[in-house]
């Protein structure tokens, strides 16, 4: 319990509870329907993948602005390469493309000693540009055969009456949580973000840690794109646009500090839940959809202040 309270995700737990109470009070009948719960959890699962990857990168004191484009690029690759490679083949290649983007950006950051903000902003534009060129701006679909392929169903359908995306999220989150909290790699990743100099002086190869974090982040974003398209196998050029902002917001709401070294996987997931819930509920309540961005901004700022006060109260820096 003490561990939980002191973990970075604790603020997000309080946030989720508070949000659910408020939504229940103002819109009980609209919020607690099967339809709403199913949609919100589905969207949350997708965003949570991207947010978890973002959280890993932020924990190393870097940032990845390219995740929305990588999400789109992997999705487009998965659909357009399928006729040639089949579902499993295009799945692997789409993930490989995502990993390659992450790797190239990481090399520029680590070896070129460039700020990740700039490098991944470049990555955001470059990957989006490739999507436009590749698709020629047109919409691509899966063939009926590809739609009914077992792998497509395993990634995009339902298992035991639950959206596959949610089951995948639980599985991957558990693995990432263990990786971060209970392995030497996780210890070194947090150390790299906490104090790169100190980690280096203990023999940690912080360059390699950062490269691994960027690759993981791109892989998770790519996987989220593939999951989305397995569910609705249709690409468009704007796939994943602005997702980087939602993912960063989710990670930060979930307790990740942009100063590095602090954050949690659970927090990123809960942060994603908060972002998605606000989007969904505002639209459900009839607010113009454009207001949602403003709201997320407000939630983000409130969350940062709240996490900071909470951290101070619990006795560690924010």
């Amino acid at each position: 319990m003490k561990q939980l309270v002191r973990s970075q995700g604790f603020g997000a737990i309080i946030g989720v509870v508070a949000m659910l109470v408020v939504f229940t009070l103002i819109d009980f009948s609209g919020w607690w329907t099967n339809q709403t719960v199913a949609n919100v959890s589905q969207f949350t699962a997708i965003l949570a993948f991207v947010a978890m990857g973002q959280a890993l990168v932020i924990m190393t004191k870097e940032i990845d602005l390219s995740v929305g484009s990588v999400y789109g690029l992997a999705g487009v690759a998965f659909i357009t390469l399928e006729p040639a490679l089949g579902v499993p083949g295009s799945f692997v290649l789409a993930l490989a493309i995502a990993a390659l983007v992450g790797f190239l950006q990481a090399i520029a950051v680590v070896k070129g000693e460039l700020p990740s903000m700039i490098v991944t902003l470049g990555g955001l534009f470059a990957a989006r540009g490739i999507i436009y060129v590749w698709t020629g701006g047109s919409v691509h679909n899966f063939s009926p055969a590809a739609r009914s392929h077992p792998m497509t169903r395993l990634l995009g359908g339902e298992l035991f009456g639950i959206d596959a995306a949610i089951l995948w999220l639980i599985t991957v989150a558990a693995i990432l949580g263990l990786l971060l909290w209970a392995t030497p790699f996780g210890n070194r990743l947090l150390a790299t973000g906490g104090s790169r100099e100190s980690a280096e002086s203990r023999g940690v190869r912080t360059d390699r840690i950062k490269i691994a974090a960027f690759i993981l982040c791109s892989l998770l974003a790519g996987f989220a794109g593939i999951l989305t398209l397995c569910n609705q196998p249709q690409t468009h050029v704007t796939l994943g646009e602005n997702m980087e902002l939602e993912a960063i917001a989710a990670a930060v709401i979930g307790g990740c500090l942009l100063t590095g070294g602090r954050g949690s996987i659970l927090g990123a997931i809960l942060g994603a839940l908060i972002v998605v819930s606000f989007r969904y509920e505002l639209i459900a309540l009839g607010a113009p959809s454009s207001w949602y961005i403003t709201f997320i901004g407000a939630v983000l700022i409130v969350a940062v202040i709240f996490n900071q006060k909470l951290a101070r109260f619990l006795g560690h820096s924010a």
Partner: protein
Amino acid sequence: MTNTHPLIQVKNLDLHFGAFHALKNVSVDFHAGELIGLVGDNGAGKTTLIRVLCGIYAPSSGEVFFDGKKIEKFHPKLAIDQGIETIQQSVGLCDNLSIARNFYLGREPVKRILGIPFLDFAKMREKSTRVIRQFGLRDNVSADDEVERLSGGERQSVKIGRAVEFMNRVVIMDEPTNHLSVREREHVNELAVQLKEQGLLVIYITHDIFQVHKLADRVVIMENGAKVADASTDAMTAEELEEVIRQGGRLVEKREAV
């Protein structure tokens, strides 16, 4: 010295930080089983010199030999693998991590489950606190507490404990007694002598010549990035060496003018 060839040999080392000339043609030998006092005023270049030895900085020119072999690549990991353990000044601890996690950072003990290396938390907690307690960690501080919450002395005790746990062939202590109480200070000084008697090379950095003269076999004095004296403690008294430090700056300038 007892050994024929030096364990660490530094030859004509120069290091520039941009336009700043931090190490000037430094040559010095260190032997196994020696306790060396590395002394000099603040800013003399002591920390910079030992950060080359432990792989943090690469020299601009000059050579370093370890056990007779020339060092080609400088990285802390390589130095650690060769058996150089360092109590760093001002770096070495990650505030966001617990004591146990800091203690084993980079060399975490693992338990394999299905071949996957998981941190051995029980060992990390138990061993780190047992070692650090000897150097002034209070009983109410646990291995799970973040380093951020520790006092200066407690932070230092974590670094010292860690060096003891991993000591191998060389232990470098960069102003190790900073923030420590008198009793803990004595403990660290005894430790330095013990390590030396076990055959390790101990490099003890301080700006207090009187403190280190009592412990050391040899004292190396630095000033303005250059070595200005290198003498056995049998050959020179602390007072004489202090005089050298006082004169040091002038000596360097004289030598540079030549």
